[in-house]
Structure formats: structure tokens, C-alpha cells
């Protein structure tokens, strides 16, 4: 087990290095000059070449790319992710450290909803079958094909502006006001959870259908256990493996893709930071975020693999 974890972590470091290298090279190849973006905006006047040159040298962009790359790697080894191009006051790592928990909170909340709603829904579809199955399968299709910003916008219109049940968006720190924090979390989390809930429900459904045909289910019934107990303890419990895989994947891919929901609800997460940073060609910030997301991803994969063992003793190492 320990060896397995260590092995995977080591492999993870190699993966991270790969990711860093690809991102680094890609960003430098993408059109869009960070200095020009910094100096100009939509309605800017002419930017003098001198100003451009000065900013570029401030950002270190005047050095040969290989030097920039090795400098950056050397920094990473010291856990120094550099400072944002947009402000020397912004330490990339601590800034991400500020945004990341907010995204994680949102994503994990959505994942929680997906678990609480998706698993029973999928199980229900599999168990009842027939019309209920068709209806649930249509609903999950809807959940998967509705763009999250449309869901979010409708939520705001209905639940905030019409009903006034929830604030229209924004963020309050939990330490400042826990209840306000929670109220502002509800709508975006639910809106975000639509897709992932649908996927989890579908996954659960097919896994349950598979498990239900297993011999041990019949064994459990032959013990005289009530159907509900059999279903819960022997069918659902044994169907969780693919669900966990899906959840892991979805959580991982949501980390960098919450931008739309963040925009609609003004949630200061990492998704919008990533998009803003890409737009302003803030290389250190983009690189930092990609590294952090990739690292989390590797971690999530590891957790999923460990969970396999928890869920299925046969997979224990």
C-alpha cells in the first residue's frame, strides 16, 4: 500500500513535469503579448515600443525561452511559482491558495448533491424500470445537455429576483458570516450539480442493473433479508465502484471548468481566474493553476484507486 502510494506519487511528479513543460511551451507559442495586454485595453492609445520593452524585461520575457523555462523550473523546485504578470504584489501560489478552496467548495458541494440525488435516482430507475426508467433517463439527458449558464440564469431569475429566497450571487467568506456564505453557495452548487448528478445517475443505473444479476444478491435474499436491505447493502453497495470512478473524473474536470457558473453567480473561484489569466496571457498564473489542477487530479485519481480497495476488498493492495 505505502509502496503503491509512493510509486504513484513519483509517477505523479513526472506527469506534473510533463504538464508544466507542455503548458509552458504552449503558452509561449500562443499569440497575444502579455506586455501589450498589460499596457493596453480596448480603448487604448498607442503604446510606445520603449514601454513594451520595459514591461517585457520587467516580466522577464526578454530572456531566451530556454532560460525562462529553466528559471521557472528552478523556482518550482523551491515551491516558488512566481508572481502574476498583472501585479507583482500577487504571489501566484498564495493567490491560487485563496481561490482554490472556493472552487473546491463549490465542486465538492455539487459532487455531494450528485451523490445524494444521483445515486438514489439511478438506483430507482434501475429498480423500477419501465416508465420511471424512461422518465429518469430523459431527465438525465436534459441535465447533461442544458448549458450550465442557462440553468444558472434561470435560477437567479426565479429563486433570487422573483422569489427572493436566495441572494443573486456574490461571495461572503464563511468566517465573516456562515449563514450568508451558505445561502450564496446553494444556487451555484445546485446549478453546477445538474450535469454531474445526471452522469452519476446514469452510471448508477447501469451498475445496479449489472449487480442485480449477481449470485450474491440471490444469496442475500435467501437469508430472508427484506428487499430494501438487500438492495441497499448488496446491490447499491456493490455498484459504487464505477460511480466513484465517474465522480473522480467529473470532480477533476470540473476544477478548471467552473468559469461559467462563477460568472453567473459572481463566485470568486479558480475557473474565472484561469480564464482571466489566459485572456491576459498571465503565464505564471496560468502555469500555476494548471499545475495545481493537474496535481489535484493526480491526487483524486490516487484517492479513487484507494477507494476501490475500500469499496472492494479484492482490489486491495
Amino acid at each position: 500500500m505505502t509502496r503503491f502510494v509512493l510509486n504513484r506519487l513519483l509517477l505523479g511528479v513526472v506527469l506534473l513535469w510533463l504538464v508544466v513543460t507542455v503548458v509552458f511551451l504552449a503558452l509561449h507559442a500562443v499569440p497575444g503579448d502579455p506586455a501589450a495586454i498589460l499596457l493596453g485595453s480596448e480603448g487604448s492609445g498607442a503604446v510606445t515600443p520603449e514601454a513594451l520593452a520595459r514591461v517585457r524585461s520587467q516580466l522577464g520575457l526578454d530572456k531566451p525561452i530556454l532560460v525562462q523555462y529553466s528559471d521557472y523550473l528552478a523556482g518550482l523546485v523551491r515551491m516558488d511559482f512566481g508572481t502574476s504578470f498583472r501585479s507583482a504584489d500577487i504571489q501566484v501560489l498564495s493567490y491560487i491558495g485563496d481561490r482554490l478552496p472556493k472552487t473546491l467548495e463549490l465542486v465538492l458541494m455539487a459532487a455531494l448533491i450528485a451523490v445524494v440525488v444521483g445515486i438514489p435516482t439511478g438506483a430507482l430507475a434501475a429498480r423500477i424500470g419501465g416508465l420511471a426508467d424512461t422518465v429518469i433517463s430523459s431527465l438525465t439527458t436534459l441535465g447533461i445537455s442544458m448549458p450550465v449558464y442557462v440553468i444558472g440564469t434561470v435560477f437567479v431569475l426565479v429563486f433570487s429576483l422573483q422569489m427572493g429566497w436566495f441572494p443573486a450571487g456574490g461571495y461572503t467568506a464563511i468566517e465573516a458570516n456562515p449563514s450568508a456564505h451558505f445561502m450564496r453557495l446553494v444556487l451555484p452548487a445546485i446549478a453546477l450539480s445538474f450535469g454531474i448528478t445526471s452522469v452519476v445517475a446514469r452510471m448508477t443505473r447501469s451498475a445496479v442493473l449489472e449487480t442485480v444479476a449477481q449470485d450474491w444478491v440471490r444469496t442475500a435474499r435467501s437469508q430472508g433479508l427484506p428487499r430494501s436491505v438487500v438492495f441497499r447493502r448488496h446491490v447499491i453497495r456493490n455498484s459504487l465502484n464505477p460511480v466513484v470512478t465517474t465522480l473522480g473524473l467529473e470532480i477533476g474536470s470540473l476544477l478548471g471548468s467552473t468559469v461559467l457558473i462563477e460568472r453567473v453567480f459572481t463566485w470568486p473561484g479558480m475557473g474565472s481566474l484561469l480564464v482571466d489569466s489566459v485572456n491576459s496571457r498571465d503565464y505564471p498564473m496560468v502555469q500555476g493553476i494548471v499545475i495545481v489542477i493537474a496535481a489535484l487530479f493526480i491526487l483524486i485519481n490516487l484517492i479513487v484507486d484507494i477507494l476501490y480497495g475500500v469499496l472492494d476488498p479484492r482490489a486491495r493492495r
Partner: protein
Amino acid sequence: MKTTSRSVRRLRRSLNPVRVGGALFVLVVVIVTILVPLLGLPDPQAQNIPEKLGGIGTPGHPLGTDRFGRDLLSRLLHGARIELVVSIGATAVALVVGVTLGMLGGFLGRFVETITMRTVDVILAFPPIVLALLIVTIYGPGIVTLIVTMGILFSPRFARLTYGQVVTVRNLEYVEASRVFGNSTLRTMLTVVLPNVAAPIIVQLPLTLATSILLESGLSYLGLGVVPPTPSWGLMVADGQRDMIANPALVALPSAVIVATILAFGLVGDILRDWLDPRRGMASNL
């Protein structure tokens, strides 16, 4: 002769009214896609800005108009064409790339497994926007790039799915038998393993189709998507969002068409899965 009648029987067995409905819908979409230039609809790109944001039932525009006064009906129908090309193309690329990676990794094991599955991890670890940006840089924008980008973005799903299936199937005796009786590794993978891992992959297809329609509109933001004013459903939803209050149909209609199409494709997938599976219809436990 006999084979056909058997497969016809199997096909008949995998049909039910809902699925037939879905199949018909797909058929309609496909026919519309082909025939749309002959329908005598207004040019989907023709602007008539003074008549912008007309609601459903506007004279001459049965489904209304968008912010450029373009005919929504015509755009929807023309959009189907682009949408199908892009989303099916992307799904196909994802399918081929992902299944190949998963098959190789799962079947050959050892270092091939490490390489393929870790490649998949690297792709997954990239936030889509960054990966997309990277690919645009390499290929330059356009529909082909869009298809390739989304294909690569979605390939990990198929790779993982296939890998998981292949790992369980690869040790079954019929796979070994195939090799003992003279099939090459490649042939075994293609003719024996692949058909036996296909079912969950087929189930994944419509989901990927859905995601690619959504992402298509998202990527257009990076200048990677379908280039306006060419209509595509994903873009129509994204654009319509701004005018959602003035004319809700601009979001609702394309969304509805997207959902219906994906549902229909899902149903066709179900038919296909059951049809291809000779064991389907065997009694199951409980």
C-alpha cells in the same frame, strides 16, 4: 439469408415504441440536414435587423428572429447540419483515439499500459480551455481544428472505459483461444476483444455527443468554434442567452432541439447495443 433473418429478428426484439420514436427523430434530423437547402427557407445568414428579436409567430418567421433579425427556423435547420458534422466528428475522433489508447493499454499491458494510460492522465489533467488554446495554436482555427480539439478532449473518457473493459475481457479464455488458433494480436483485438467491450462504449456515445455540443459553443469564445455567422445550435444557445429575457425562444428552442437530438441518439444507441449483442433478452436475475 438465414443470418439476415436472425439479425432482423434480433433488431425487432431490441425495438420498442419509444426507441422507434427516437430513431425516427434521428432520421428526420438527418433528412433535414440533407434536404434543408431545398426547403425554400430564408437564408439563415440573411440579416434583417429592423425586425430583430421577433417572437414566435412573427409573419414570415414562424419561430421568430434573433438579434440580427435572422430567421430562427432556418438557422435551427441549417444549424443541424453543422452541429451533426462537428459533434459527430468530434465524438468519432474521441472514439477512435480513446478506444485505441484503451485497447492498447489494456490488452498489451506493461509499458504500453503505462504510456497510454499516463498520456490519458496528462490530457485529463489539462483544463480544457488551456488544451484548446494549445491546439488552436498548432492547427489554427476552423471546423477541423474544432473537431480535433474536442476529439482529444473527450478521448480520455473512451480510453478509460475501454481500458477497464479490456482488462476484464483480456484474460477470458475466448481471447486466449483466438490467439492459440492463429489470430495475430491485432486481429484478436479488433475482431474478438473490441466487439465484446463495445456495449458501454456505445452507451457513452450520446453523452459525448451532448458534451461536444455544449463545448462547441464554449470554444467559439476562443475563436475556435464554428465561425459566425454560420449557425450552430451550441452557438445559438450561447448567443441567445443575452436576449433570453427579450425572446426566450432564442434559448429554449435550440436547447430543446439539442436535448431531443441527444435523447434520440441515446435511444438509437440502445437499439444498436441490443442489436449487436446476441445475448440480449436472456433472463436476468431478480
